[in-house]
C-alpha cells in the first residue's frame, strides 16, 4: 500500500504506522495531490479506509451553483459540509484571504456495508479553521 500511495502524483512521503493503522501522507511542495485518488489507491491495494483527514490552505469562493467552496488550485476545490465553522467562512468569499483548515474529507459509513462508495463527491467537514492572512 505504501508503494502504491508513493506512486500517486504530488506525494512526497508516506508514513505508515501498523500499530494504530495510521497513514500520513506529505504532499510535495509544488505538487498537486488528489485525495480521491489516494482513497482509490488505498482501496486498490486491498486496504479499507475508515477515515481521511487533511489540512488544506485555500481561498473561499462561491462556485457556479452558489455553493461555498475552498479553492486550492484553479482546478481543485472542496465543498464544505455546512456547519458552524463553514458559516464563519462566508464573510471571506472572494476576499482573496488564504485560510488553512483541518477537516474530514471521508468517513466510512457505519454498519456492515462491506465497501464504501468512494466514487461519490467528497465534502469537507471542517473541524478547525486557522486564518492565514
Amino acid at each position, binding site marked *: 500500500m505504501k508503494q502504491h500511495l508513493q506512486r500517486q502524483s504530488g506525494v512526497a512521503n508516506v508514513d505508515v504506522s501498523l500499530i494504530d493503522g*495510521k497513514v500520513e*501522507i506529505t*504532499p510535495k511542495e509544488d505538487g498537486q495531490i488528489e485525495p480521491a485518488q*489516494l482513497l482509490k489507491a488505498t482501496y486498490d491495494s486491498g*486496504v479499507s479506509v475508515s*477515515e481521511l483527514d487533511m*489540512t488544506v490552505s485555500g481561498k473561499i469562493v462561491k462556485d457556479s451553483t452558489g455553493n461555498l467552496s475552498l479553492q486550492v*488550485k484553479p482546478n481543485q476545490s472542496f465543498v464544505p459540509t455546512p456547519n458552524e465553522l463553514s458559516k464563519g467562512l462566508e464573510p471571506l468569499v472572494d476576499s482573496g484571504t*488564504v485560510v488553512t483548515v483541518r477537516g474530514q474529507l471521508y468517513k466510512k459509513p457505519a454498519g456492515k456495508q462491506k465497501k464504501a462508495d468512494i466514487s461519490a463527491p467528497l465534502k469537507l467537514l471542517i473541524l478547525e479553521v486557522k486564518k492565514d492572512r
Partner: protein
Amino acid sequence: MKREHLALLLLAGCVFVPQLEAQIRHVEMRVEGMT
C-alpha cells in the same frame, strides 16, 4: 542597479507566494485490514 533587482525580486515574491500558499498541506488516513 542592485535596487532595481531587489525591487523586481520583491515584486515576484508578492506575485508567487500567495499562489504557493494555497495547497493541501497534510493528509492522514485511518485504515483497516493492513498487515
